[in-house]
């Protein structure tokens, strides 16, 4: 098996995540889809590290994980504070600027 098969899996996961972000309405599910995309990118980094034979890709994947952890913390705090004021987790209900 060629290691680049992992890259195809990564591309598939990224695509699925992006479709989820575009179609789902629940902000938490959208957030989880973003996490899936980050994970897919990480898998690509790790595979590239192996194909190229140096550890830089793994270091970048490590940094991505830290940034993803920060993003989750702040993003979930935003979702909770929106939920407190609007009583909804749907992205359609956040439309104060629209009307």
């Amino acid at each position, binding site marked *: *098996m*060629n*290691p*680049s*098969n*992992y*890259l*195809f*899996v990564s*591309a*598939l*996961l*990224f*695509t*699925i*995540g992006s*479709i*989820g972000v*575009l*179609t*789902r*309405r*629940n902000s*938490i*599910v959208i*957030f*989880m889809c973003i*996490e*899936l995309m980050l*994970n897919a990118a990480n*898998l690509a980094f*790790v*595979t590239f*590290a*192996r*194909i*190229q*034979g*140096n*550890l*830089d890709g*793994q*270091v970048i994947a*490590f*940094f991505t*994980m*830290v940034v*993803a*952890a*920060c*993003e*989750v*913390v*702040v993003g*979930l*705090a935003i*979702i*909770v*504070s929106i939920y407190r004021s609007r009583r909804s*987790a749907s992205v359609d209900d956040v439309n104060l600027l629209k009307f």
Partner: protein
Amino acid sequence: MNIVAMNAGLTGTPEAVLFWVMAPLAVLAALGMVLVKKAVHSALLLVYVMISLAIFYIAQEAPFLGIVQIVVYTGAVMMLFLFILMLVGVDSSDSLIETIRGQRLAALLVGLSLGVLLLGALGHAFVGNGAVGLDLVNADGNVQGLASLLFSRYVWAFEVISALLVTAAMGAMVFGHRERTVPRRTQRQLSQDRFQEGSQLPGAPLPNPGVFSRHNAVDIPALLPDGTPAPSSVSRVIKARGDVLSSEPFELKQEDQGDQK
């Protein structure tokens, strides 16, 4: 020797078996994550995808990242997601109404074309290419190799990212903080309120629910010493559910009272 060098880039049979078992399941779980209606199910399917990615990392000579993936993602991040799901409401499922007409179809088309583009580019670039493998750089151990990179070439990024973590924690605290708009009532004020004229709160504690031991008592109002039921003895949750039973069968009848006299 030549054959060994040629095969160095390819993976062994065990890894191929692992890949062909785990990868389709991971992709299916990811698809299910997008397709299922309940957010909790999505979260659990995402946990599955993340664990299979961790196994892929370990199979790809990145044991440190594999463990970090399990600890950080499935252990911390997904549990945080589940906490927030429980807070926001487990049954906050998606509305199936399209607010923009044709948006779902357009999103599907755009997403699929992105996928075709990515797969096409990858297939064009990598078919037939072998891999160098990490045996050489992992010779001292994966963690040691990563550490020597982190603390030499990437030390500045490492420091910046620690600042980012602290900032994110502070940001979450600021978002979660709620300013108190009315001053907190002290115990003295609460007690004065309770005894004030016209106060709804009784000075004494509320009576406990239930009469005798003949019934599961929390859904029946207590009987006061004069024989009348006390509605305030039943929890308002049970009242809201409409599960309050009448205490009438347990009340003392006129003739009982006569007997006692």
